[in-house]
């Protein structure tokens, strides 16, 4: 597919830029601040990839899975829609609004669908599991089709270009979200293509990443046993699926999940109090194949959390900052000050220890859409 229009990286070294911001009360802002922040780190990008995840953007359709799709051609779209209609109720299908923008060329066909699994097909299976299987099916089996976002009330927007150009291409200044996460640069050790840009998403999990995962091979083989198909030719994909497996399916806490990805050294485990030692030994033994080897700093997000994490010896940069209800996580300090000049507190997180920012209320109560209000007012 798009995989044919790949751009070589020619070993153009720069470090990825990652930036995330969350309002803990669920108050929404448009995309302007994150565009400003990620553009400030242009030196870290190289024009071969940029992308964003935005949470809270589809309040009127918040109960439906929002599938963002890339298609090579009409055939791929028709084939995918046939598959979708057979498996889901389709509430809405539309072209993702874009505007031509300098620096963004050869986009695939970009569509979004609001879907709910057909109850009669669930047969006791959890909806989320059903959706994961559907995503894997499309990505693996339908030539020229790729799901790049599949969560509820959130969406990923990404492509080949500088992140600020990609943001303008997707009109992100017109969306409002309580959590924004962005990334600049391109997939590690692979050629840049639209699907290979960050964030990587499954359900409402999104991951942006600076670094490289040298344990990719063993991680992929482990995840395959649980039905995750890695089709994107790049390492970060495994983090998204690993997090989904560990936190959603195996119900690990964020802290324990972090200790799987960035496990403490054995000599540190040996010094822990007995109970803790037992837990960490078990985690390392059970999930040794999900240890992420290699340098990384990542921002993981879902509908109510934003999590920053680096590898245990911090081989990639990450700083955090807060002001009031805002929490920021960034590759560099300056963009946090640029978007929020009165930022109160910034710090350098410890390697392997997650920063977890969580909405005060797990479920955001959405304002009823304007149309509904109008209708109510019209009642006698």
């Amino acid at each position, binding site marked *: 597919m798009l995989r044919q229009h790949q751009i070589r990286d020619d070993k153009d070294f720069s470090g990825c830029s990652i930036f995330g911001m969350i309002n803990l009360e669920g108050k929404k802002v448009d995309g302007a601040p994150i565009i400003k922040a990620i553009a400030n780190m242009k030196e870290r990008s190289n024009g071969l990839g940029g992308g964003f995840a935005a949470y809270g953007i589809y309040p009127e359709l918040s109960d439906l899975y929002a599938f963002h799709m890339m298609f090579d051609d009409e055939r791929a779209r028709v084939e995918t829609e046939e598959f979708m209609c057979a498996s889901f109720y389709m509430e809405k299908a539309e072209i993702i609004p874009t505007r031509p923008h300098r620096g963004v060329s050869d986009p695939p066909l970009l569509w979004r669908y609001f879907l709910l699994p057909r109850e009669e097909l669930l047969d006791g299976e959890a909806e989320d599991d059903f959706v994961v299987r559907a995503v894997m099916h499309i990505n693996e089996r339908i030539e020229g089709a790729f799901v790049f976002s599949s969560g509820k009330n959130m969406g990923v927007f990404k492509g080949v270009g500088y992140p600020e150009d990609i943001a303008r291409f997707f009109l992100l200044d017109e969306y409002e979200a309580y959590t924004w996460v962005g990334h600049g640069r391109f997939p590690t050790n692979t050629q840049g293509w639209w699907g290979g840009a960050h964030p990587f998403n499954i359900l409402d999990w999104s991951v942006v990443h600076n670094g490289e995962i040298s344990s990719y091979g063993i991680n992929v083989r482990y995840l395959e046993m649980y039905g995750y198909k890695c089709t994107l030719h790049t390492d970060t994909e495994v983090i998204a699926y690993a997090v989904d497996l560990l936190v959603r399916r195996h119900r690990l806490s964020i802290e324990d999940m972090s200790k799987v990805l960035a496990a403490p050294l054995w000599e540190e485990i040996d010094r822990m109090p007995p109970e803790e030692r037992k837990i960490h030994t078990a985690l390392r033994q059970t999930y040794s194949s999900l240890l992420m080897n290699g340098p990384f700093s990542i921002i993981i997000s879902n509908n109510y959390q934003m999590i920053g994490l680096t590898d245990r*010896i911090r081989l990639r940069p990450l700083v955090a900052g807060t002001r009031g209800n805002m929490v920021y996580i960034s590759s*560099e*300090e300056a963009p946090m000050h640029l978007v929020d000049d009165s930022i109160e507190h910034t*710090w*350098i997180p410890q390697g392997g220890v997650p920063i977890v920012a969580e909405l005060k209320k797990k479920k955001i109560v959405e304002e009823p859409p304007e149309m509904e209000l109008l209708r109510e007012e019209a009642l006698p």
Partner: protein
Amino acid sequence: MKIDLEKKGDPRVFARINDKARIDASNLHYRELNAMVKEAASEGVKTMEIHNVFGQRYIGSGVRQPVHIDIYGVPGNDLGAFMDGPTIITHRNAQDGVGNTMNSGTIVVNGRAGDIVAMGMRGGQIFIRESVGYRAAIHMKEYFKHKPVLIIGGTTQDFLGEYMAGGVVVVLGLTKGEKEVKHQARHIGTGMHGGAIYLRGEVDDRNLGKGVSKVPLDEKDRDVLRDCVEGYVSYFGGDADEILSSHFTKLAALSHRPYGGLYAY
């Protein structure tokens, strides 16, 4: 983005009165800004104020005149890299790579700095008011009279003095507010083979890397410490005598070639 190295002609961006200059960096790419700083220094400007700095890298890089540069905002990575003589004062936090391979001069950070402060530093002084991130003083080195000094008011994170080959690092632990500080950084001095690290307070042996050990302080060490602490106090305030009355731990390399037997024998 188009790089325009002629922006110095714009009075809104660059204003000069006698030997003082004021630069508004709001819309400047680092290449534009640094070309301006370098040119101004070579034209005889003695003091510069740079305002609205947000992430521009390499400020002061390669400047060889003893100019005084005040930075308002957050300078980007590799502040003062390769610089040879200037004094840079930042009035907020700094990012990663402060003083990367700098040769001489002074950098003062009124706040915190990021990772790899003083990486490969060859000479001059760096004063950080608060704490620093990972790998401070990584591969810092010295050559006869060229002896770099890094003084940190707060604490450091892991891998302080990694592969350190020379120079002096002083970590005061003042931000902890305790009389006797216990440093928590791990893997301190991993691969260290020269120079000295002075920590106010104590550190557990298990936090030290292989190839480094605690050694007693002598009179010469006390003189070095006094110079460093008085320098720190002159920028950030405090009582030098009180700080110096605390217990200090000195860390030094066990060998000049810790991996000699590993790679060549």
